[in-house]
């Protein structure tokens, strides 16, 4: 398959250690695009750039070449703080609280739409 070049005899599939230096150390930016007016910005990808201006210019060139957006945000990846599944309310527990959902209440048909 194209992007899975077969291993040669004696070649290891493990990742090789590199001698690469820290490089330029350009920070990573997360890119968010508003596809059209009236909807929220959505995460679309990331890129490395030395400063916000270059990050925006590069994001524009990479992610909106075909009119994919009307607004663009870049945010330093290091500024994103996150909760992951294990930090969130337990899924089972959340689903047990059925009284949070409108459909669990019986309203007589005669009342009509509510």
């Amino acid at each position: 398959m194209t992007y899975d070049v077969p291993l040669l005899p004696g070649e290891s599939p493990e990742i090789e250690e590199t001698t690469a230096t820290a490089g330029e150390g350009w920070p990573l930016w997360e890119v968010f695009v508003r596809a059209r007016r009236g909807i929220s910005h959505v995460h679309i990808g990331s890129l490395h750039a030395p400063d916000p201006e270059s990050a925006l210019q590069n994001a524009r060139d990479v992610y909106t070449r075909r009119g994919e957006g009307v607004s663009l945000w870049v945010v330093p990846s290091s500024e994103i703080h996150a909760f992951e599944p294990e930090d969130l309310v337990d899924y089972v527990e959340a689903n047990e609280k059925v009284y949070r959902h409108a459909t669990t209440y019986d309203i007589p048909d005669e009342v009509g739409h509510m």
Partner: protein
Amino acid sequence: MTPEEHFEAIVAAEDKIEPTDWMPEAYRSTLIRQIAQHAHSEVIGMQPEGNWISRAPTLHRKAILMAKVQDEAGHGLYLYSAAETLGVRRDELQELLHQGKHKYSSIFNYPTLSWADIGAIGWLVDGAAITNQVMLTRCSYGPYARGMVRICKEESFHQRQGYEILIRLCQGSPEQNAMAQDALDRWWWPSLMMFGPHDTDSTHTEQSMQWKIKRVSNDELRQQFVDMTVPQADYLGLTMPDPALKWNEERGHYDFGEIDWDEFWTVVKGNGPMNRDRIEHKARAWDDGAWVRAAAAAHAARKSAAAASLTGAA
């Protein structure tokens, strides 16, 4: 549930694995290797096509070709970003490529000798890539699958522009017809090789299929590609360079001849027509661009220092 069971449950449920999820180390390293090779392929793939930008036959074709080559750079970026979510840095991966420790698709180790080759690459090489990448949109690793969705949208333009180049040539003079036929003769077999060894010889396919990194086997994808492409060649009035190629009514597929596996391994081992040139060119471009990166970093540092001193003064 152990982390391993949780991982397996997500994969079994056709859900996606995301960067912060626990994953087996071998899953991570398989993905890093594959995504990096995919990224390198996009970037190295700019060279054979870039070769014809200055000699495109019309301004219109030149604009199209530049847009396509620019897309390939973008694809490389999406993929390096996806790889970075697995805990490697882009410059590390790039360094491995420059050192010859990382590979890329062998198809880019063939030269582009005529304008018709640009047509053949779009039609066949991007056609084969699409076959593969459509499968990868269903890959179990979220960032890779999402990158593939974007890439597939753009690849469709690549394939169609290539096929259109060949339509024009095939409607042209006998010389132009011959040029198109020659391109097909040279690109057909390497395009079939893009799908890799036979399933029976493909060592780590099985594990990748279990992990749903890969969803369809090499031979099945190759067959899909052949079935799709033969009628397109017929339309062009070109002859496939394979005397064994024949519709098999019983199977409902085309039968085709055997790939020259010696050639396949020669190129994988680094001895194809362009292997050395491609890496030399890539490494040189990186080194030549050092001053641009240094200037950008210096500019950013000066600006942020200026901003800090303003804040300090206030």
